[in-house]
């Protein structure tokens, strides 16, 4: 009997396997032995939390981190972080990073021959409110080539990192843009068998958050794992 309530297993096909050969780097970096099943304990149902005191209110505006304005198309990216039972993940940290509008990351490993933008770092963070809402202002990231296969290009995307309430709910994902012609060819986007699950990584154009004369709005809701059925009572 386990007195600790665990977290629900994913619906089949909605999460990637570690090994996905079309994504070449996964071949030498995924375990070859089966994962060992363990019960949930206090260690996995607890986890770190980071309140809004850690995050400056301006950290969610990636267009105001330098003297000048970054080049590119200003956008608002917002949404809710909820669990599989639609309960809001309040007060949880959301970290994002992305390429600039030319498709270049401010990182020494990125040697893509596209210009850096002195006015864009590509790093943002926010803490969700009591309803699980977050909001970023940023620049639409550019597509860029990579070396996975011949003529490989990544669709435009923004990286997201979230904690949720427990070690078990930690999630790193990527948000994509509607209508991107590169999506059908991207081995990372296509790593998940379930088509509906992968399409939920595509943000939705959103009039409600679109600001007149300022910025187009994209909505991206993030679902964290829900609690397992009611835990058995402790003896």
């Amino acid at each position, binding site marked *: *009997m386990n*007195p*600790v309530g*665990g*977290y*629900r297993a*994913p619906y089949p096909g*909605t*999460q*990637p396997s*570690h090994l*996905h050969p079309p*994504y070449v*780097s*996964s071949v*030498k*970096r*995924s*375990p*070859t*032995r089966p*994962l*060992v099943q*363990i*019960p*949930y*304990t*206090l*260690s996995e*149902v*607890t*986890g*770190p939390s980071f309140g809004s005191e850690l995050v400056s209110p301006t950290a969610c505006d990636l267009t105001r981190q330098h003297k000048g304005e970054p080049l590119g198309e200003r956008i608002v990216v917002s949404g809710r972080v*909820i669990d*599989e*039972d*639609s309960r809001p993940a309040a007060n949880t940290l959301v970290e*994002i*990073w992305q*390429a600039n509008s030319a498709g270049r990351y*401010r*990182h020494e*490993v990125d040697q893509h021959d596209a210009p850096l933008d002195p006015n864009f770092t590509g*790093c943002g*963070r926010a803490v969700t409110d009591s309803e699980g809402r977050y909001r970023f202002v940023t620049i639409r990231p550019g597509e860029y080539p990579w070396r996975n296969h011949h003529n490989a290009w990544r669709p435009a995307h923004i*990286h997201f*990192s979230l904690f949720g309430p*427990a*070690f078990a709910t*930690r999630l*790193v*994902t990527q948000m994509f843009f509607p209508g991107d012609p590169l999506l059908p060819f991207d081995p*990372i986007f296509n*790593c998940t068998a379930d088509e509906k699950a992968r399409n*939920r*990584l595509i943000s939705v154009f959103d009039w409600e958050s679109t600001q007149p004369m300022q910025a187009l709005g994209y909505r991206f809701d993030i*679902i*964290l*794992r*829900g609690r397992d059925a009611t835990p058995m009572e402790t003896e």
Partner: protein
Amino acid sequence: MSLQATTSQTVGPYFRIGLEWLYQDNLADEGVEGERVVIRGRVLDGDLVGVPDAMVEIWQANSRGKYAHPADTQQKLVEPGFQGYGRVPTDNNGAFRFITIKPGPVPGPEGKDQAPHLVISVFMRGLLKRLTTRMYFPDARNAADPILNLVEPIRRSTLIAKCMPDALKWDIVLQGPDETVFFDLGL
């Protein structure tokens, strides 16, 4: 009908841009109760080459075996100034290092204590979802640990740090005969 959790994607090679601000390789400032330990190791790929673009996250209880989290309802003291979270990147050789205190035992299934351990997430370019594992300490209590006992005996040593003169050493090996045991938490 419940919703379905968002699909995981890789951190890719450029995660430092967004995640560096929270890098924390010293989990326990001076004055935090408990035995201070330095832990170092490497993340090694299928060719046993160091992974230069990996990140290790740590979560642990304090020296009394209490997590700084509301789900831990034990009658034990939370220690102000100790959260129990660390985030460390690997260097160009795949090496990582962090400083912490050895946690106390926390309850496990059926109320049996678990041996002191850290829970670990591993992220890197090439990993579409994180790997989760545990690091145990050289400690006689490991023999009775309910989680270690779910692992075939010959592989348990991959979860236990080794005493070196200057540190505890614990490698994360992705493939091969010494492949680290990774856990299925239903991710």
